[in-house]
């Protein structure tokens, strides 16, 4: 009872202390929690963020910073919003993107129309003004829809905090600002329309500007003659300034002569394209503004001629960091057998490494040393031939692979090592041309780092003291790094696993096992089933009849002892079964008698007698007689009766 109480108390103490150990957290010194489980984190849409984003977009748009507004809009697909808000946000985003595109186009169109009107090019400006009018209408509709979408967003967001209200007010103001901007564009459009109307009312005279070129084909760098006339319905317009445009960019000015003619010699630029275009522009100035409209000539195209250059490049050999590569190539010029010396440049990954002249026949062969730190993998080599007057330039890119020369490492390390002895790791390093010695070998073992260097034959050897470890046996990873000095050789890493045996603990284990073995031995010695001394008994027993041969006598005696022991065993088994008891191997016959007799008094007498007979048989010098065997049988029957079997 007492024992049970103690058990309960100790059990409770253990359980409560375990609970404390497992659940107790020390006071956290951190101000905030360091993280939460993202899988169980609650999804929350932050209204402030959404409002802030639209405020920023509107702010950019209202200040005509359309590119920044577009960049911000593009980020909207990355934001986190709840499902119920997704449609409203998506709609608002699309409307905003549409409005920003239209406003940007409207601004450009109005600007172009304004320039054309400044140049008195009435006919060219009118389509642009019409386009601007359509864009204005679209922008007005979109802005109205945006306002509706923003109202819906406010309702969905259920704005409450001061910050949210502040942002709402800001967004409302910005929408008003956007409306003002649109009104500004409308006003500008009206101004332009007014100007068109004014010009029309002035009934200005249309002018006609013609442009010709003396050739349709010419080499780059050559001179061409551009000529034409400026006139109106009343005749030629002398002394007027004409601007020659090359690809729509002003190139040169010229003044018409007394017949309204003009002529200009233009040097064709070194542009290696198929063709270029020229136009002439007349913009009325001073008094002419009161009488004439501006005009632009039709486009004149000149086909450009030049010698097209080609370049072919080959890299000879393998590319390794810090080592040179041979770049060979040939530069060819179409329709020319000898291109002459050509200036070319070699770039690796867009970095200029070589600038040189080719041979007169266009061939070149250059050695380019690679950067020792260049990474292993694919790289781009560009050969660029510089253009030279009528010869165009040429460029070619080729991809090449940078590799490192492999090292071959032969390692000789033991698989089984013993602590606290010394382990020897030997090895040999070579590469395709023989032994390799210019390297550092780093061995990481048991969190210790060892370094060595190979000898001239590439061989290395290192002795490592295997330190004690707590267990008897453990496996360990050893990492061996071969770090060559030259950058063109590859670093090698070899991982080996060894098994370490702690010989001290192993010895202790053997000692422990030996002790167990020793303990197991007496267990057999005390086993009742096989009496250890029964073999010796016949030797010491006096022979009953001298006439019986000794061998036969021994057999008889052995048989008798065995019979008695067998009867005893049967009786003992009966009793143990009945009493549900168990005997231990070290128990003496008397202890067994005491054990089995304490609970069943009826069998005490016969079993004590039987015990005595067995003791006499196995311990005394006198073997059991036939009579004693018979008595033992009777006692067994008495015991069986007593136990009810």
């Amino acid at each position, binding site marked *: 009872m*007492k*024992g049970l109480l*103690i*058990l309960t108390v*100790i059990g409770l103490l*253990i359980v409560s202390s*375990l609970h*404390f*150990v*497992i659940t*107790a957290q*020390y006071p*956290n*010194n*951190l*101000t*905030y929690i*360091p*993280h*939460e*489980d*993202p*899988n169980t*984190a*609650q*999804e*929350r849409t*932050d209204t*402030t*963020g959404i409002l*802030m984003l639209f405020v920023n977009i509107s702010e950019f748009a209202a200040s005509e910073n359309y590119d920044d507004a577009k960049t911000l809009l593009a*980020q909207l697909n*990355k*934001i*986190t919003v709840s499902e119920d808000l997704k449609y409203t946000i998506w709609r608002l985003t699309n409307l905003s993107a549409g409005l920003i595109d239209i406003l940007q186009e409207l601004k450009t169109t109005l600007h172009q129309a304004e320039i054309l009107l400044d140049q008195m090019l009435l006919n060219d400006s009118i389509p642009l003004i019409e386009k601007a009018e359509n864009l204005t209408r679209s922008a007005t509709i979109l802005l109205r829809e945006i306002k509706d979408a923003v109202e819906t967003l406010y309702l969905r967001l259920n704005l409450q*905090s001061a*910050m949210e209200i502040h942002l709402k007010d800001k967004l409302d103001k910005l929408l008003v600002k956007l409306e003002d901007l649109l009104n500004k564009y409308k006003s500008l459009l009206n101004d332009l329309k007014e100007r068109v109307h004014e010009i029309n009312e002035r009934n200005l005279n249309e002018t006609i500007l013609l442009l010709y070129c003396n050739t349709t084909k010419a080499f780059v760098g050559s001179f061409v003659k551009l000529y034409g006339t400026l006139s109106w319905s009343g005749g030629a317009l002398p002394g007027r300034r004409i601007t020659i445009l090359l690809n729509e960019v002003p190139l040169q000015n010229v003044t018409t002569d007394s017949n309204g003619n003009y002529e200009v010699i233009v040097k064709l630029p070194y542009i290696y394209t198929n063709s270029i275009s020229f136009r002439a522009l007349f913009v009325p100035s001073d008094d002419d503004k009161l009488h004439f409209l501006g005009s632009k000539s039709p486009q004149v195209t000149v086909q450009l001629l030049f010698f097209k250059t080609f370049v072919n490049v080959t890299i000879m050999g393998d590319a390794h960091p810090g080592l040179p590569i041979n770049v060979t190539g040939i530069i060819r010029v179409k329709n020319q057998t000898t291109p002459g010396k050509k200036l070319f440049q070699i770039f690796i990954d867009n970095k200029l490494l070589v600038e040189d002249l080719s041979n007169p026949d266009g061939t070149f062969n250059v050695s380019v040393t690679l950067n020792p730190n260049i990474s*292993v993998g694919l790289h781009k080599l560009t050969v660029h031939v510089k253009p030279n007057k009528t010869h165009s330039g040429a460029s070619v890119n080729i991809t090449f692979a940078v590799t490192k020369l492999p090292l071959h490492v032969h390692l000789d390390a033991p698989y089984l090592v013993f602590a606290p002895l010394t382990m020897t790791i030997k090895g040999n390093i070579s590469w395709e041309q023989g032994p390799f010695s210019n390297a550092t070998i*780093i061995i*990481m073992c048991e*969190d*210790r*780092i060892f*370094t060595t260097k190979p000898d001239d034959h590439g061989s290395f050897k290192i002795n490592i003291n295997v330190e*004690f470890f*707590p267990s008897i046996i453990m496996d360990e990873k050893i*990492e061996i*790094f071969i770090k060559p000095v030259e950058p063109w050789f590859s*670093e090698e890493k070899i991982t080996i696993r060894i098994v370490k045996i702690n010989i*001290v603990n192993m010895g*202790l284990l053997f*000692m*422990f096992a030996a*002790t*167990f073995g020793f*303990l197991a031995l*007496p267990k057999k010695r005390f086993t009742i089933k096989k009496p250890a001394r029964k073999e010796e008994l016949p030797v010491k027993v006096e022979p009953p009849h001298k006439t019986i041969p000794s061998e036969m006598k021994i057999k008889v005696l052995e048989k008798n002892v065995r019979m008695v022991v067998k009867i005893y065993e049967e009786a003992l088994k009966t009793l143990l079964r009945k009493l549900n008891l168990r005997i231990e191997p*070290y128990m*003496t016959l008397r*202890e067994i008698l005491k054990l089995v007799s304490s609970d069943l008094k009826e069998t005490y007498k016969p079993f004590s007698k039987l015990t005595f007979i067995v003791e006499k048989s196995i311990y005394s010098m006198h073997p059991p007689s036939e009579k004693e065997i018979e008595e033992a049988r009777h006692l067994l029957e008495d015991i069986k009766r007593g136990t009810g079997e």
Partner: protein
Amino acid sequence: MKLLKVLAITLLASLILSASIIWFYPQTGDFKPDNSFWNGSSKFVKTSNATIINSLKDIPSNAKSVMLLTIPYTHYDTWELETLKSFLTEGGILVLMDDYGYGNELLEYLNLSVRFSGKPLLDPLFNYKNKWFPKISIFSNHTIFQNVTTVLFNHATALVNTSDVEVLAWSSSFSFLDLNDDGKYTSNEPMGPLPVIAKKDFGNGSLILISDPSIIINSMIDMEDNQKFLTNLINVHGKPLHVLFDISHLPRTAIDDAKDALRYLRDIALTPPISFILVLITVIILLKPLQKGGKRYGSERGK
């Protein structure tokens, strides 16, 4: 006598049972390498092939080609600060990952002006589920961001006073530092883009600052491009570095102490002299019944 025997056996059995429970109870501490739950770092340790170090004394003397990752959630001792400084000077790469811990102690010791703000970095717009999980998408062209589009942080902070470091990544322009802890943006709070990852060459080595250590926990490592970023970080020199993961400054729990105590006892018990004594005691205990049996046998014979 019988009571004492019961008491002794019960106590011994209880101690063995308790020790077994503590030994086999799974590790649940934040960032713990053997914690395979959401807040552990078992995945990171496995993928980076990191070596765990329980003390900064275990840093190898050859710092080159070594990357040391430390999460300073407890104070540094002066010798530890000196060790880290030497590690950097000798060419090691130190990755200091902190948000609300004691990383600034090291920055101060290194005489740098950059600091971990220690205030929550919230992003109400570009986030995962809520503003405490800011998405980082603005990167420099450093190789550690190769093929990285987004890195996801979890209860992070930002770096401040970054004039003496090279900033490598920033939070979005909608993020902010929640200085007054109200979870909302107020007008005086610093707004994004805010620096979150930075690098400083120090001696022959490099110091890399990351303002959220949680990117290495099991539940975060597979989010967005976190794993790719960490792999690039380990391969910063074009080849994998030997990664050391310092766990000596991680927060501790009672079970950590209990497990450590058990490990300490085991280590002591397995040292050769103590092993010998224990084996001897066991042998004596085992031989005692034999001695008793022998006496009894002798006495029986005497009778």
